[in-house]
């Protein structure tokens, strides 16, 4: 049996990669993708813990997280489209109308 720690570590790696993606990429779509990575990392945790704790709650939680992810993506992509329409860019570095 694979130790729980491995799952947790795997999730951590994915989480950090996602985090790094948010921090370093300029394209807002890829940033959204990175956030998906992070959510998945949490999901891996939930399922793993759920398995090892012999409970179903974790899985239920993951189910809800997916719902949330779907909702977020919907809204997020709508925002991206609206943004692109108005500013013709997906580069978050150019979003500096609001500062200071």
């Amino acid at each position: 049996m694979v130790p729980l720690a491995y799952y947790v570590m795997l999730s951590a790696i994915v989480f950090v990669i996602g985090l790094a993606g948010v921090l370093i990429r300029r394209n807002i779509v890829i940033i959204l993708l990175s956030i998906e990575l992070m959510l998945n990392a949490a999901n891996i945790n939930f399922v793993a813990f759920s398995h090892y704790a012999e409970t179903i709650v974790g899985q239920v939680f993951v189910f809800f997280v997916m719902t949330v992810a779907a909702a977020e993506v919907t809204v997020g992509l709508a925002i991206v489209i609206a943004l692109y329409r108005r500013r013709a860019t997906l580069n978050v570095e150019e979003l500096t109308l609001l500062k200071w």
Partner: protein
Amino acid sequence: MTLALLIPLLPFAAFLVVGLTGGLFAGPWRGRAHYIAVPAAFAALFLSLIVCWQVTQGLRLNQDLYVWIASGTFRVAIGLQIDPLTAVMLVLVTLVSSLVHLYSIGYMHGDRGYDRFFAYLGLFTFSMLMLVLSNNFLQLYVFWEAVGLCSYLLIAHWYERKSACDAATKAFVVNRIGDFGFGLGILLIFRTFGAVDYHTVFSMAPALTGVTVNLLGPLEWAGLSGAHWDVGVLTLIGLLLFAGAIGKSAQLPLHTWLPDAMEGPTPISALIHAATMVTAGVFLVARVSPLLNLSPTAMAVVAGVGGATALFAATIAVTQTDIKRIVAYSTVSQLGYMMLACGLGAYTAGIFHLLTHGAFKALLFLGCGSVIHALGEEQDLRRMGGLRSHLPVTYVTFLAGVVALAGLPPFAGFFSKDEILWAAYQAPGVGAKLLWLVGLVTAGLTAFYAFRLLYAVFHGPSKVRPELAGHLHESPSVMTVPLIVLGGLSVAAGWIGLPGSANLIGGFLSGVMGFAGVAAGHGGEDDSVAHGMVIGASVAAAVIGWAAAYLCYVKRPELPSVWAQRLPMLYQGSLNKWYVDELYDRLFVRPTVRLAGAMWQGIDVRVIDGTVNGIGATIRRWGRLAQLMQSGQLQHYALLMVVGLVVLVSLYLFW
């Protein structure tokens, strides 16, 4: 009691009425102040004479009118005390005051501030009377400052003149410096005796001889205070009170205000700056004699300051050219005499001289006033001369004043001055002999400048400005009558204090101010030879002075300039008042003003406000930095969040 109370209240009422009508409001009252003020003054004089007579019949009074301040154990009343000292002062004050009132009707006629002037006169008379009537130190202090205020207001009577205002401010401030000591003295009295009324203090004082305080007590922790900083508490009190007297009576080193005070109208110079207010210092010293007597040190200081002032002022008086200034320096000098007497324990002599001086000096000032009046505000000696024929009454009365001042027998000044010199001669110790010598020299100088004044003004060729020469005229009778009255007194006032057992004034006052040390003025028969010698010496000095003046200003008028050229240092020094004013200006006035400016710009604006504004500016600067963090780059924001996260985790893991 009611009678005594009425004496000060009459002038006060006059002040209120005159001040509130003509003084502040134009209209029908304007220019009629004398209808109220003069009768009030004379009524006060009349009452004073009655009271004085009652006192000779044994009346003594010491009564509180009402409690003024009561706080814990500190309790001060406003009260009246009447004894011989008070009585003579009452008479002097009301007499000179009423004469000056009368005189001013003529002198101040047509002045813009006529009514104001009379209001102030009333206020001054009230304050001066209350001063002498006080039965405690604090009340004395109150009216002490009040007369100072009147002096201030009257010096600045012609407030358009800058010099007048300067003089007024200077007078007040210099007096304040003396009063600083006076005030501290009262505080020390309260701390020492637990009371500030004369009776308690004087009756407790003998028990306190030998008790000391350490001047540097507060610095004990720094190891500075030692036994040699111990001072007898009575000495300290005496010296502090004397500081007040120094200021008020224009003694060294606070004498500078009095000559400048001549910027005021001449009647004021006569009343305040010659006869009454400036003698308050002497009065104070006489008043506290029961305390002073217990402290030889304080006495010595009083005598020393008095002697030094007498000589110092006389040396200045010889070269001045402003007639009022000559008389003013003479006043300073004569006040020095009085102090000298008091310091030697000859209080009665001091007060006697105070009285005679009051008469002849008031006369001299009023005479000067008459001259100035006639010459259209001219005060320079060098533009006078030969006025004898134009101003006969003035001349005669002035002459009486001069001989009285010069101390020629049998005029008033002779007897009082002689008593002082005799007291000095008689007192034990080398110092006293030295003081006698100083007194003698001063007597000579006094005679010199007195006659110089007389000759320069009334004798010799006229140097009056030609445009004035035509209509020189004698003053009106409201002005000459006071002159005549005072002239009579200058001649005769001395006779109340004939040497020996006939000394009326001495007997009258000695009950108040007896001094064990010197039986001043009226010693035993065996001293009569010595006494005669002393009299002879002083008369000789006066005559020498007279002769020198006659020589220099009548016989050979070119002599003074010759001497002036031959002794330039002395002449210039004397002419410039030994540069005391300049010295004070350099030492105190200018540094103070400069320091104030520097402190304001340096400490207040730069350091304190700089700090305050600096804090504000720093906060703003930090705010701008904080604002700069907000780059608008959302990934910076994200990074900062993650950094926060990492920092928190690190804190947990590694700390």
